[in-house]
């Protein structure tokens, strides 16, 4: 039988998409890379996923897991006519354990749905990517997603207590659990952030954190990016790690304000959105520190959201920023790199210079507190050469971040987009070690091939014979 028929035998033909238009829709994520899809399949159970893996292996076709497709690095886009396994139907919250502050959820559960579901218990899932209304927990696990509030709370990997995963051969493993300090090699840590290249996550035991009893959200206004960045460093140096510390530059502020009218000052060079959470006395003390540091660094205004409604407007404006840029040009390319936060000022200056050199508008809204930059270039893809200029500028942005002691990606992942830039950060030996991880867990290369690691990573020659007694 053909591939589609074999897959249909597992999940039912109504959950297999083979139509050309449908396949085209699944051949791209929220980024700019398009791939090719042979068939889309939507399983509901772990058993079905295991069987699908076996079918794909039998047919010799790669499998690419996909959540909501909000990724930006091409991680969920098959390069070469793969089977897309959509986890959309695996969207059950299986159990919530209030006493142990955890929940078993399907990979297709939407990030914000989970936090809404557990809010009445005074608990929430801490990672909150800007796409949290759409992105899935499975996607968060694959990309080790962050969000504004991972400054104090940490990225997804800090919030995964256990995983059920289908590996090569359809083997199902469950690792981790509610009890801490699981002995042995912690496979959770290697699976989280592996971008679907080692297996398909079918259940996640997430850690839930208590919702804070009180919160202060401050809007600090500056007449230079440097003053805003100095405030970021100053706040940390004063011993306060806010729940979130977000920066927006003037171009971005103007775009957002045009659209949402959140009350952002359009004449400011930069604004900082700072949030502290906790008990009332603590947030008051910490908000006072932030205010004092901002004043000292020359803030032209500092205001505090008066109530939840005002606070919600500020956050909506921040998290909708990427939508607001549509008024500037038909296409945008959103970047994701990290630098040590002490290098923010010089990095930002160079980011603008790169934009000017390539004739691109560079807009910025980013997680300043942890040095996670998101330069966004707007362009018109129908203009000849525009995308080439964007790609050239992108390469320079990544090289700049790594040269400044940073990393290729803070939360979007490597995917296809940055795969060939990995040697900027890692030696041949380092990449070979990563390739060995892939080989150990997915020897047949069925899961999301040619992602994360550049081709040839595994070929490093150490010039030494294979030692006697090696397990091969």
């Amino acid at each position, binding site marked *: 039988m053909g591939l589609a028929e074999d897959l249909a035998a597992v999940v039912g033909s109504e959950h297999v998409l083979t139509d050309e238009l449908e396949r085209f829709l699944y051949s791209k994520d929220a980024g700019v890379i398009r791939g090719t899809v042979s068939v889309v399949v939507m399983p509901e159970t772990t058993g079905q996923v295991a069987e699908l893996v076996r079918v794909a292996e039998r047919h010799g076709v790669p499998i690419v897991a996909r959540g909501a497709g909000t990724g930006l690095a091409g991680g969920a886009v098959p390069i070469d006519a793969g089977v897309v396994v959509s986890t959309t139907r695996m969207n059950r919250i299986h159990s919530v354990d209030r006493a142990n502050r955890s929940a078993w959820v399907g990979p297709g559960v939407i990030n914000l749905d989970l936090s809404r579901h557990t809010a009445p218990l005074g608990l929430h899932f801490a990672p909150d990517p800007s796409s949290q209304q759409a992105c899935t927990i499975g996607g968060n696990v694959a990309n080790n997603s962050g969000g504004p509030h991972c400054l104090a709370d940490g990225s997804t990997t800090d919030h995964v207590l256990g995983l059920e995963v289908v590996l090569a051969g359809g083997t199902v493993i469950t690792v981790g659990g509610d009890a801490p300090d699981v002995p042995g090699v912690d496979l959770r840590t290697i699976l989280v952030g592996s971008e679907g290249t080692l297996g398909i996550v079918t259940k996640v035991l997430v850690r839930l954190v208590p919702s804070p009893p009180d919160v202060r959200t401050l809007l600090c206004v500056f007449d230079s990016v440097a003053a805003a960045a100095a405030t970021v460093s100053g706040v940390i140096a004063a*011993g306060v790690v806010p729940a979130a510390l977000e920066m927006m530059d003037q171009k971005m502020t103007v775009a957002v304000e045009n659209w949402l009218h959140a009350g952002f000052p359009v004449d400011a060079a930069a604004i900082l959105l700072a949030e502290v959470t906790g008990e009332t006395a*603590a947030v008051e003390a910490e908000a006072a520190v932030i205010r004092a540091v901002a004043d000292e660094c020359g803030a032209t205004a500092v205001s505090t959201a008066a109530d939840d409604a005002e606070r919600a407007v500020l956050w909506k404006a921040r998290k909708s920023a990427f939508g607001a840029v549509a008024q500037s040009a038909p296409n945008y390319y959103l970047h994701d790199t990290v630098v040590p936060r002490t290098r923010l000022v010089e990095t930002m200056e160079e980011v603008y210079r790169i934009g000017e050199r390539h004739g691109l508008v560079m807009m910025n809204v980013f997680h300043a507190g942890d040095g996670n930059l998101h330069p966004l270039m707007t362009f018109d893809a129908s203009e000849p050469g525009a995308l080439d200029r964007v790609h050239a500028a992108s390469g320079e942005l990544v090289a700049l971040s790594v040269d400044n002691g940073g990393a290729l990606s803070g939360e979007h992942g490597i995917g296809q987009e940055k795969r060939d830039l990995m040697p900027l950060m890692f030696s041949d030996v380092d990449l070979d070690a990563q390739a060995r991880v892939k080989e150990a867990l997915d020897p047949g290369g069925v899961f999301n091939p040619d992602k994360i690691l550049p081709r040839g990573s595994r070929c490093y020659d150490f010039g030494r014979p294979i030692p006697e007694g090696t397990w091969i």
Partner: protein
Amino acid sequence: MSIRVRSLDEFERAPSSVTVGLPPAAHRVAPASAEEMTELMAAATDAGAVVVPWGGGTHQGLGNRVYPDVIASTAALDRIVAWEPEDLTVVVEAGVTVDDLESELAARSQTAAFLEVAPGATVGGVLSAGVSGYRRPRYGPTRDRILQATVASGDGRLVTAGGRVVKNVSGYDIQRTIFGAHGALGVVTSVCLKLWPRSSTSATVTVEDPDTAWGLLYRPLAVLQTEAGSFAYLEGPTAQVERDAERLGGDRRDGLVWPSLPSGEVTAALTVPPARVTDAVARVGAVGRYVAQHGVGRVDVAGGRGTDWAGLREWAQALGGRLTVTGAPDGFYDGFDPWGDDPPALGVQRRLVAAFDPTRTINRGRLPGGL
């Protein structure tokens, strides 16, 4: 190209100042650099030798017994390489002791939130042994703070994973997988750690009922229970610490007064889902000394050979937890696995480890399942 590897006999023996307290072994070496550590692993693999990496020796009681041909001391890897207070990161070599690092960081009111009571333990040792501090309710396990790690793999490769920034998704998180892997992915030579700022005000408050205290406080540093009583640990803005202390109502002492880990003939860690700590305390209370971490799910216990460890283990395992022996006389292990039942996905663990140490040069057999 072929690289000549020194034989084990060609490595300089560690000086007696380093070998004090080390168990006997044919070769006791303290490599002066990460590169030399790597070369030592290659030599050991070529010789078919078993290596035990050695930091402070404080957690060598964990796991299955290993009888080494080579002891690889990290004593000479003793530098704090780069501390960036404003970035809240530090790069440190494996042989630096936790106490030395923390006292250095305290000068600028920062902490790596390592175990507060680990005299002599080294950074490389606590990472490899998977040891977290008491302040886990606020800062999470030590694993969450590993940003980058460099390891000398069992087959002699110097591998770096991760980056020196607080947020990073660039390739597989090997730097976190080393946590608790007892060197199976390599001897840790250096790491970059995420730090936390400390507040000037802290207090230790006696509480009657630790469960009530845990429910009352928003992210306390810790709520601990020992046979001497229960204590809540507070740190933060002065007004908040004062208010929390008042709400708890017990005796209050300024600063953080941590209990040392219980010691005895046999010591073990009982791990259970966090909400079952009180049940666990009810079971271990009769055994001997203990330190229970509420909200975390870990109880460190000290007892004797005659303690009903098997009964405790059975109870914990039924809850999805474990009883792991952390220290015992050699003979104790006959018929009593220090780890308990084999962990799930042992075969996958084995394949992953083989990617770094195909002949199991480092700590062969120490891990659960004899890995």
